[in-house]
């Protein structure tokens, strides 16, 4: 499994880099696959409401053909409905692949993975019913295949396939039930979506506004210029030589038609089982870099900041079991994904995954990085880079004279680490985070910016010269942007007065444990 995940990650990184080169990291749609799928679901619901006004179960093909002939609205709204469903499926597949490649499919994320699979399956069935509604040759083909597959299951008292045989008209009840499913399934998907994001704090459901506008605008333009055709009407007495097939949502059809129903169900069940078992086989020991966060009760002041910052709602404030008056943070390991965001959110550095708390970060800096920095002699810029950053990109920063200090996630970085670097001789600190919508910890860049520049709890102390701190983004495919940011920062530092190191500062002292009431007395 590790081998497969590594391969998937390499593919993802290459594709991501290509998309970033084309669109820029801020507009890279591959960082937005989940939210694009949700946006498309909303487009489908809105356009579907309009189409529903004109659809007639008694004359399905005729009503759709009449709709498609409307030059001002029906034609492009129907096409937009079709293309949005295609993009929904594409976005959902890419989203699942992304989560798999980034190992975001197991442990506390299992619920999201499984519910995502169900949502995807329901989405495909919904698309199936949508094409059957049209009742053109392709819709009839899908209906026949559906009947063939369902007839081996003990579901219907009369085989579904016989409805389409031609010896009797297809009953309107069939089209009514089909339409009902087409309306009801998206409602079920709404509930499924709630479950899908239920473990996230502040789930982001839509892409950035401008990207949403660009995607919907592009699909609308395609709908206007290249409207989706309506196939020939279904006819049980004619054998269609070919059908205008939607290969995005019915990609399985050519395969399924070549299999017996039993084999087709076997493939479906096997595929579903493999997908469902991904969290089981993809999981890794909850130790080392994947250990859940722990709280040091002696350091916790009960400030309630880490529960607010945790992107997974894995931390709660509970009564203390000692004599101190405040509450104490408690991490739920079953929900903690070990993103380490809490390590950066805790002013007294009392929470974080083992080895990655604020105090651990300072220790690591003192033991390994600062001696190296001191040996270099001249003050240089320190580039703090996310461990996810491409090696070639960090090498480009080194080539420009920056000292690179990798951290597990820029969002984990405690602001005291930035202060320590500056006090230890760094002329400036530039922190490279991942693109905000591609942060494995979800909200790392956001909270880091708030702490450094907007005085969010665990803020960078006022005594630190903000001009010597810069936040930037490093993404595969955007190396020149990262280098340009370093160059611009270097230029800005040149005009500042000389920087005087203050290596004796003991930052931990400023974060003393909470005294007990007895000690206060």
């Amino acid at each position, binding site marked *: 499994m590790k081998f497969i995940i590594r391969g998937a990650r390499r593919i993802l990184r290459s594709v991501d880099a290509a*998309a970033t080169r*084309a669109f820029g990291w801020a507009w890279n749609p591959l960082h937005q696959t989940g939210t694009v799928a949700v946006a498309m679901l909303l487009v489908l619901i809105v356009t579907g409401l309009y189409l529903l006004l004109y659809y007639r179960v008694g004359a399905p093909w005729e009503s759709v053909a009449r709709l498609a002939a409307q030059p001002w609205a029906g034609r492009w709204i129907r096409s937009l409905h079709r*293309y949005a469903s295609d993009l929904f499926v594409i976005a959902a597949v890419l989203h699942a692949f992304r989560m798999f490649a980034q190992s975001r499919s197991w442990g506390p994320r299992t619920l999201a993975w499984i519910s995502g699979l169900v949502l995807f399956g329901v989405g495909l069935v919904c698309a199936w019913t949508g094409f059957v509604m049209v009742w053109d040759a392709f819709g009839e083909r899908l209906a026949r295949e559906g009947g063939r597959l369902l007839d081996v299951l003990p579901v219907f008292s009369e085989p579904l396939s016989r409805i389409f045989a031609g010896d009797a008209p297809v009953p309107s009840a069939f089209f009514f039930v089909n339409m009902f499913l087409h309306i009801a399934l998206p409602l079920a998907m709404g509930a499924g979506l709630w479950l899908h994001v239920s473990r996230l704090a502040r789930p982001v459901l839509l892409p950035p506004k401008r990207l949403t506008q660009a995607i919907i605008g592009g699909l609308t333009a395609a709908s206007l210029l290249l409207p989706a055709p309506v196939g020939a009407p279904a006819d049980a007495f004619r054998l269609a030589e070919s059908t205008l097939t939607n290969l995005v949502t019915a990609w399985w059809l050519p395969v399924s038609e070549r299999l017996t129903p039993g084999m087709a169900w076997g493939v479906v069940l096997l595929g579903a089982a493999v997908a469902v078992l991904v969290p089981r086989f993809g999981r890794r020991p909850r130790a080392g870099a994947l250990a859940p966060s722990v709280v040091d009760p002696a350091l916790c002041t009960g400030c309630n900041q880490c529960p607010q910052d945790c992107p997974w709602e894995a931390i709660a404030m509970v009564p203390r079991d000692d004599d101190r008056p405040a509450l104490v943070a408690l991490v739920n390991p079953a929900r903690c994904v070990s993103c380490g965001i809490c390590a950066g959110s805790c002013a007294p550095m009392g929470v974080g995954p083992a080895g990655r708390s604020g105090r651990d970060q300072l220790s690591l800096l003192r033991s390994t990085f600062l001696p190296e920095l001191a040996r270099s002699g001249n003050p240089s810029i320190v580039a703090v880079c996310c461990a996810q950053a491409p090696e070639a990109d960090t090498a480009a920063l080194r080539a420009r004279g920056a000292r690179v200090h990798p951290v597990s996630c820029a969002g984990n970085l405690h602001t005291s680490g930035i202060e320590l670097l500056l006090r230890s001789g760094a002329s400036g600190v530039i922190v490279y985070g991942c693109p905000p919508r591609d942060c494995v910890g979800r909200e790392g860049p956001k909270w880091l910016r708030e702490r450094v520049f907007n005085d969010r709890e665990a803020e960078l102390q006022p005594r630190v010269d903000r001009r010597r701190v810069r936040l930037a983004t490093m993404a595969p495919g955007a190396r020149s942007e990262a280098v340009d940011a370093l160059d611009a920062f270097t230029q800005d530092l040149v005009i500042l007065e000389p920087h005087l190191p203050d290596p004796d500062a003991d930052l931990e002292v400023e974060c003393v444990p909470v005294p007990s009431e007895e000690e206060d007395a």
Partner: protein
Amino acid sequence: MITGARLKRRVVAVGAGAIVLLLIVGTSAAPLPFHDPAMARLRLSWSARPERIEVCRTVSAEELEQREEHMRQRVECDGRFATYTLRVEADDRVVSESIVRGAGLRHDRPLYLLRDFDLPPGGHRIRVTFTRREKTDDDAAAFAKVTPAVRDSGIFVGRAEREAEEHARRARAAIPASLALDTSVTFTRRRVKIITFDRDRRALEVLDDTRASR
């Protein structure tokens, strides 16, 4: 002001977006081969209730007297549903021979038949036989006259007649013990001819797009 690099990126982004959109449009309605254009199709499609093969006995007056009035069914039958052999020949060549049973685990539901056979266009002699497999000379049992053994009273008046009529109705609703169709059919390429069971005529018949209500 848009710099040259930004303009270039925007052009690339629009171009890449357009390519993605064209791919979506192209795969959204791609012609996918379905049927062999050189062939025609014969379809057999019908559903009917299989015959009930029963051994019936008339309950004696003494037995009836011992039962509650609402339990006095005159004829009691025990049996099972018939199975059939379907044989399809095209130009004296057997293209299919199979056993057809009623649906359901106990085969007590109506039988449903749907078979497709691809044939080259042109005239073909088609012979279809649908024959009950079980040999029985007790077919008339279901139509046996049910005579009242005791007087019925109250709401049970006329029950014997109703019981006889129900037996007869069930027998009439079932498919005949033997059906056969021997006919010449002209097939056109990419067209379907359907052989179905006409319940009114109780016989097999050929349907095509000129003789079907869709």
